[in-house]
């Protein structure tokens, strides 16, 4: 390759990157239109499979039992597993919905993701604690096993412990009413 040609190619690179990025964005938008790409409701490879194994420490200073793998392996009723963090803005937005579920007696289990334990504890004191069981995943290893896309992220497990639904992003009142509640009712039966 001559230096002049190499230079030409190098100067063509920005255009190439924009073209490739543009094509990918176009694909995403088409996917969103068809409904098979949704950055919030990304389908998980784990749907229809049991929850991956994890063994995590608890959250000191919060009077809630530790969340173990056994609690989600075969819970006997639908349970919700929520990955969250105190530094996460949308977690505050979805918090009232989790509180509402917990008041109704739905077991909501929490895993604090990449968060200092003091910060997680303060978050729960400040906003209230919707979690019936808690664990913390400071290094983020369990989150990788679960395929967590970002916090907040929520999983619905059926009574046999099979993951039925996964949602990345804040659970708004609308998502709660239109998606989560119908699923809870269906899997409770």
């Amino acid at each position, binding site marked *: 390759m001559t230096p*002049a040609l190499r*230079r*030409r190619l190098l*100067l*063509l690179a*920005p*255009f190439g990157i*924009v*073209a490739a990025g*543009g094509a*990918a*964005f*176009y*694909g*995403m*938008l*088409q*996917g*969103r*239109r068809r409904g098979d*790409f949704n*950055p*919030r409701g*990304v389908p*998980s*490879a784990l749907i229809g499979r049991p929850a991956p194994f994890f063994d995590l420490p608890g959250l000191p200073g919060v009077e809630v039992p530790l969340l173990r793998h056994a609690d989600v392996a075969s819970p006997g009723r639908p349970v919700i597993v929520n990955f969250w*963090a105190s*530094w*996460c*803005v*949308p977690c*505050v*937005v979805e918090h009232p919905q989790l509180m509402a579920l917990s008041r109704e007696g739905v077991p909501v289990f929490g895993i604090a*993701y*990449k968060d200092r334990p003091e910060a997680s504890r*303060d978050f729960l*004191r*400040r*906003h*209230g604690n919707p979690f019936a069981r808690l664990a913390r995943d400071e290094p*983020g290893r369990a*989150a990788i096993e679960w*395929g*967590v*896309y*970002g*916090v907040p992220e929520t999983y619905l497990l059926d009574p046999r412990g099979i993951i039925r639904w996964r949602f*990345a*992003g804040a659970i708004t009142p609308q998502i709660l009413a239109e998606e989560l509640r119908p699923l809870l009712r269906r899997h409770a039966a």
Partner: protein
Amino acid sequence: MIGEAGHFALALGFVLSLALSVLPLWGAARGDAALTEAARPLAHGALLAVASAFGFLVSAYVANDTTVLSVVQNSHSLKPLLYKITGVWGNHEGSMLLWVLILALCAASVAAFGGNLPSAFRARVLAVLGWVLAGFLAFILLTSNPFERVWPPPPDGQGLNPLLQDIGLAIHPPLLYVGYVGTAITYAFAVAALIEGRVDSAWGRWVRPWAVASWSFLTLGIAVGSWWAYYELGWGGFWFWDPVENASLLPWLAGTALLHSAIVVEKREALKIWSVLLALLAFGLSLLGTFLVRSGVLNSVHAFANDPERGVFILGLLLFYVGGGFLLFALRAPAMAPAGLFAPVSREGALVLNNLLMCSLAAVVFLGTLWPMFADFLFGATVSVGPPFFNTATFPLVVPLFLAMAAGPLMPWKRAALWPAIERLWAAALAGLAGFVVALAIGGWNPLPLFGVAAAVWLIGAAATDIADRAGLGRTSLANAWNRAKGLPRAAWGAAIAHAGVGVCLLGISGMGFASERIAALSPGQAVAIGAYEWRLEGVRDAAGPNWTSRRATLTVLRHGQPYAVMEPERRFFPIGRQTTTEAAIRTNLLRDLYAVMGEEEGGRAVIRVHYKPLAPLIWIGAIVMALGGFLSLSDRRLRVAGGARRRAAAAGAPA
């Protein structure tokens, strides 16, 4: 009626901007002076049309004209007048109109203040701005018409997101958009230069003031956004690495690199191709931000109502402008003379280092923001990226940046030695060390913030050294040095002040590391303390505003046991829209903030969270200082000389 008039004005603006995108180019190519000069009146005309459209939309909001759909969706007769007006740009359609209004303002200001540019070049710059204007006006007219009518009109509007009903948000988008859209001007300069196939030191001189102006506004816009998050979201952080925040940081980083590399183009005629690339990139990144926020491909608290159809349109515009710009770049840049060689240790060498670090930072933020989305799309794999990633990845890049930023301005052009520059920084280094010791004595051992304080003081000291050195302090009498300092070019003062501003901002960020917070459930009469300060809950009562009710706590702040201040944090409930917001109470003396937030109430006790945040206000003061540095350098004599030239030309052209 208002709706029809506004719609018509928009269509008129579209036609004028189409004319602006074609006629001047044609004129410049054929050497037709009349067509070339048509660029200026056309730009002014487009501004007039778009400004009237915007005026009509504002008056529809003020009059609460419920025949306009946008008013119905986003306003309410009970809303205070100020928020009726700011509500105009609190939604997708209105904010796009504001975006286009600012773009038209940019084009008109190039037409008005671009007197120092050759006529053909100015015509080409304005034509490129005309393309952008026409594209976005078409987007508004076809997919996001703010004047969409409803008939029969409903009795009243449906309110506005209460989080958005806020003074910070009122001034945030206009400032941010001036910064975003300002990058369109430097883009237009770059494309015009590529069309002419010539980039020289004059190009560097022309493009710099526009780069500085847009950078200064972008700095202010980002600062106001972060200040809004600080007091409105209510948990005392100032930067969350939210995708929308990152989207505003990206063009800022590219713009910072551009305004430094343009100096090298002007002084040394090097980095020409690189600077053109940065100008294209800065605009590309600012369009990318617009696209991400409005297409719904990413997940953020700031997102507008999103719609894939609109996303496809914006993506098309983005690919046309950015892809087209880069294609032109690929065709024309190879013919441009390659950059001259220069010594790595020199002013230009330091500026190249700045560019490398800025671009690496931009790459890190870019990847962190977009990678999860792409990974998901391409491989179906999911990765999570949050503040832990950004903090870890940006840290090793900002450390050398702060070190180099101090030494760079002290180096001469062409060839320098590292040692004399470092030698002159001994005073700054001592000041940094003193800052470290003072912070250690007050705040205790906390390595990261301590080194942050040291680096901040070092940056401020280095900026002072720069000015003192240029004034000849120590080599001449004090009075003489003072006179020379006063006589220094304003660009030199601007640069030093902007660099000091970075130091001030860093000081504030480091102060966050010494902040402490406490949460307590208090009954009236009980208190919670941090250091010398004590917050005593006096009581909680109901309060009401025009369209909200609230629970407001009254806290007496005691300092060393003496009453010091009263703070009233509250939780507001907006019945229209059924939303609750937290209104933090902040008491500042510009060197530290006392911050109080009210949480849930339970059995007569209220959860109160209090923060003591030393140095926090300096984060935003620092950003304002940076922007002031930018504005000061805009008032430099070289620009006024150009103004003089313009006046002379006008005088010569007048009939004798």
